[in-house]
C-alpha cells in the first residue's frame, strides 16, 4: 500500500517524544530526519521531501502546541495536516457521461487500468466503453479487447489502423451509445517528442473531461519529470497508481500530484478487472500515520472533559498537578474515559493504537478493562468523602468495610488502592512541567505513560493503554 511504512517508522520516532511536553530543536530534527527517510524510501521526490520536512519542522518549532496536546501529538498533527494539504482530495469523477484519457509510460498499466475503470463505472450503473488507440505495441489491441471482455464493457479498436488519432475519432463515434468513454493510449515517455505531439493531438480530438496519468507504484524520482512533461503536453487532472499489490510504496504518485497540482483518482491492486479502488485521502493518511482518527478523538476528549467537569464544580483537575491526586480525581479520570464512549472505539482513534496494536490484544481485553473500571467505580462509591480525599489513611478494617459495601472483596479494594498509588507516583513525575491540565493528563494516559495504564491488571492490557 501507498507509503505504508511511513506510518510505522514515523510512529517509532514519535514514540521517542513520549512524555515530552516541549519540543527541543534536536527532537524535531530527529523526527524530521525520520520523516525524510520514510518519504524517500517511499520514492517521494527529494525536493518535495525537503519542502515537506522543512515546513513540518518550521511549524513544529513555531507553533505552540494547543493546551493539553503532547509534543508527540502536536508533531503528528502537523505531519497529518501537511500530508492532507499535499494529497488533497480524491480526483473528482462525477457519475455521469464523460470522457477520460489515459496517459503514461510504457508498462505502467494503462490498458489494465482502462479495463478496471470501465468495470468500476459499470458497477456504478453507467455504460462505459474502452477505446484502444495503441497502434505501436504488438498485442496491445488483443490485450485491451480481452480485458474489455473481462470487464464486460464496450470496446473499440482497430488492429489494422496505424493512426491513433483516427482511431480515437472513429472510436468515439462507434461507441456513441456509451456514457463513459475511456481512451487508452500507447505508452510513451517525456522525452519522446513525436509521441508527446501525438498524444497532444489525441487529446484535442478526444477533448476529455479528465486526463489521468497512470503511474507504476514502483516509479522512482523520475516521476517528477514525467508528470511535468505530461502536464505541459495535455494537462493532468488525476493520477492512477498501479501495482500497489507489490511492495512499492507509490510515493511517485505524491510527486506527480504535487507537480501537476492534481489528485489521486484510483489505486490498482491486482491483475483482475475488479482490483481497483477509489482513492480515499483521509483514511489513507490516517492509516498511514497510524493515527486512527485524531480529529474525532480530540473532539471526543473535549466533549468528555466538558461533561465530566460540568457535573462537579468543586472538582479542580489542576489540583492534581499541585501534588494532591486523590481517589476522587481518579474517579473523575475514569468517568472522563467512560464519557468518551466504548473503549475499543476510543482505542482505535488513539495514535499508535489502531491496527496492528489492537490485533495483538486478546479479544476480550477491552471488556476486561472496562469491567475493571466499572468495578473500581463501584468500590469508590462505597467510600466516604474523607477516604476518597485521603486514600493513604484507609486502614485494613476500612478496606474490609468498603469491600462489603461494594459487594467485592478486599483483594479488589487493595488493587484499587495500589492503582491509585501507581498513578499518584506517575503524576508526581509530571509535576513542574508547567501549564498542564487534565486534558494533557488524558493524553499522557493515551500515550501509555501510566495513568489508567494498570487498570487492566495482571497480564491483561495493562501497560498497553
Amino acid at each position, binding site marked *: 500500500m501507498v507509503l505504508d511504512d511511513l506510518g510505522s517508522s514515523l510512529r517509532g520516532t514519535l514514540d521517542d517524544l513520549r512524555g515530552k511536553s516541549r519540543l527541543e530543536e534536536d527532537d524535531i530534527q530527529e523526527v524530521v530526519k525520520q520523516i525524510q527517510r520514510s518519504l524517500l*524510501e517511499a520514492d517521494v521526490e527529494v525536493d518535495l521531501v525537503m519542502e515537506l520536512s522543512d515546513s513540518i519542522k518550521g511549524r513544529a518549532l513555531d507553533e505552540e502546541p494547543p493546551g493539553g496536546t503532547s509534543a508527540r501529538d502536536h508533531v503528528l498533527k502537523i505531519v497529518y495536516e501537511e500530508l492532507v494539504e499535499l494529497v488533497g482530495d480524491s480526483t473528482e469523477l462525477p457519475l455521469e457521461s464523460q470522457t477520460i484519457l489515459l496517459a503514461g509510460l510504457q508498462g505502467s498499466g494503462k490498458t489494465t487500468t482502462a479495463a478496471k475503470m470501465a468495470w468500476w463505472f459499470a458497477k456504478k450503473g453507467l455504460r462505459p466503453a474502452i477505446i484502444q488507440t495503441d497502434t505501436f505495441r504488438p498485442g496491445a489491441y*488483443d490485450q485491451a479487447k480481452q480485458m474489455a471482455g473481462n470487464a464486460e464493457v464496450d470496446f473499440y479498436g482497430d488492429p489494422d489502423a496505424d493512426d491513433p488519432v483516427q482511431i480515437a475519432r472513429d472510436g468515439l463515434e462507434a461507441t456513441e451509445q456509451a456514457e463513459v468513454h475511456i481512451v487508452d493510449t500507447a505508452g510513451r515517455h517525456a522525452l519522446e517528442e513525436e509521441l508527446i505531439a501525438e498524444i497532444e493531438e489525441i487529446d484535442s480530438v478526444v477533448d476529455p473531461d479528465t486526463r489521468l496519468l497512470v503511474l507504476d507504484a514502483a516509479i522512482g524520482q523520475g516521476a517528477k519529470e514525467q508528470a511535468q512533461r505530461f502536464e505541459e503536453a495535455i494537462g493532468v487532472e488525476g493520477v492512477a497508481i498501479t501495482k500497489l499489490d507489490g511492495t512499492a510504496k507509490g510515493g511517485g504518485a505524491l510527486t506527480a500530484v504535487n507537480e501537476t497540482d492534481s489528485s489521486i483518482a484510483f489505486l490498482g491492486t491486482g491483475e483482475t478487472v475488479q482490483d481497483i479502488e477509489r482513492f480515499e485521502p483521509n483514511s489513507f493518511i490516517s492509516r498511514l500515520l497510524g493515527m486512527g482518527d485524531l480529529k474525532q478523538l480530540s473532539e471526543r476528549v473535549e466533549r468528555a472533559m466538558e461533561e465530566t467537569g460540568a457535573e462537579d464544580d468543586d472538582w479542580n483537575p489542576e489540583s492534581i498537578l499541585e501534588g494532591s491526586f486523590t481517589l476522587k480525581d481518579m474517579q473523575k479520570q475514569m468517568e472522563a474515559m467512560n464519557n468518551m464512549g466504548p473503549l475499543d472505539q476510543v482505542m482505535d482513534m488513539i495514535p499508535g493504537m489502531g491496527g496492528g496494536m489492537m490485533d495483538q490484544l486478546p479479544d476480550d481485553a477491552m471488556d476486561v478493562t472496562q469491567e475493571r473500571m466499572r468495578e473500581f467505580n463501584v468500590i469508590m462509591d462505597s467510600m466516604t468523602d474523607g477516604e476518597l480525599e485521603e486514600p493513604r489513611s484507609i486502614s485494613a478494617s476500612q478496606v474490609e468495610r468498603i469491600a462489603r459495601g461494594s459487594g467485592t472483596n478486599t483483594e479488589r479494594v487493595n488493587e484499587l488502592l495500589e492503582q491509585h498509588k501507581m498513578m499518584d507516583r506517575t503524576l508526581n513525575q509530571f509535576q513542574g512541567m508547567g501549564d498542564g491540565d487534565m486534558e494533557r493528563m488524558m493524553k499522557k494516559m493515551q500515550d501509555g505513560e501510566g495513568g489508567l495504564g494498570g487498570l487492566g491488571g495482571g497480564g491483561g492490557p495493562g501497560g498497553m493503554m
Partner: protein
Amino acid sequence: MFDGLKDKLNSFREDVEETAEEAADADESADDADESTASADADESTASADDADAESVAVDDDDSDDSAAAAAAETDAETPSSDESDSDDADDSDDSSSGPGTLKRAAAFATGKVIIEEDDLEDPLWELEMALLESDVEMSVAEQILDTVEETMIGETRKQVETTGELVERALHDALVDVISVGQFDFDERIAEADKPITIVFTGVNGVGKTTSIAKLSEYLADRGYSSVMANGDTYRAGANEQLQQHAENLDRKIITHEQGGDPAAVIYDGVEYAEANDVDVVLGDTAGRLHTSDDLMSQLEKIDRVVDPDMTLFVDEAVAGQDAVMRAQEFNDAAAIDGTILTKADVDASGGAAISIAYVTGKPILFLGTGQGYDHIEPFEPEELVDQLLGADQ
C-alpha cells in the same frame, strides 16, 4: 542516463572541498595560537578564525545550517584560546577536541598536510546521500556506499597540494565500481562457449519490458550469428501471445506458444525441444510479469526454473524503478537465481540508480540497457565506463 547523479556528485565534491578547507583554516588559526605568545600574533589568528567563521556561514546553503553551525562551533571552540593568546588554554582546547591529537595535527601541519575528520565529512556525506537517493539508489545501498567512502576518507591525510576533491573522487569511484561491477562477465563469450542450445529465461514484474527485451536480444544474437527461438511462457496476460508473435513475425523468428492459461514451463520446454531438433542456438523463454508479493506466481516461477533448468536467467527491470527495485530483485533472485539484469527504459530516466541498487543487492551484473523502442535499442552495460562517466572522467 546518469546525468543527474553526475551533476550531484560534482557538487558533492565541491562541498567536501569547501568544508575541508574551512576546517583547515580553523586548524591553522588554532595552531597559530599554539605557537604564539605575542598578542599581535593572537590578534591575527583571531581575525583568521573569524574569517573562517564568516566563510563557513556564507558558503553553506540555508538547507544545511547544520554544517554552518558545526563549522562555526568548531571555530568558536578554538577561537577563545587565541583571543586570550594563552598557550595553556589553546592546549586545553586541542586536547578536548576529538579526532587526531595535537601531535598528529601539528605533524600534519608541519608537513603541509591536512587530516580529514569525521566532522568535515558529515554534511558532504549527507549531501551525497541525498544525491544518491535522488538518483534512485536504494537507501540501504546508498548507506553502504557512504560508509565505504567515509571509511576510506576519515583519518586520511592529504597533502596540501592535493585537493580533498581528488580524494573524494577516488573513494567514490572505488565504492561505486565495487558495487556496480559486481560479478561482471562477458555475455557474448558465455554464449559462444556454452553448449547449444542455450536456454535463457526472462523474469520480472509486470510491464518492465520482458517481451520487448526478448525481441531485442534475439536481434542482438542474430547480429552475432546466433539463431534463436522464442517461447512464450506468459500464458497469463491478455495479448501476450499476440505481442510476442508480432515480434517474431517482424524479426522472422520461430515462436512457440501454447494457449492462454497453459503451463508456462511446458511452453519453454517445448522451445528447448524445438531448438534441439532444429539446431537453434538460443531459446528465449518469456514469463508472465508477476509481482513478487504473489506467492502463487512466485512458486510458479520456481517451478519453471526447476523444470526448464535454464542456462541463464535474466531479470528484467526498468531504469525508472525507485526504491522498490531492491526488494523485487531480491525476491526474484530468491525464487529463480538470476545471472544478470537487463535494465529497460534507460532512455527515460536520467538517474539510473536502479542499476546500482540491483547490482548491489543481487550480486549479479547489469548486462544490458534497453534504450528505446527499436529492436536495435539494446546496449551492453559497461560498469567502468559508467562510473567514469558519472564522475566526469575529463577531470
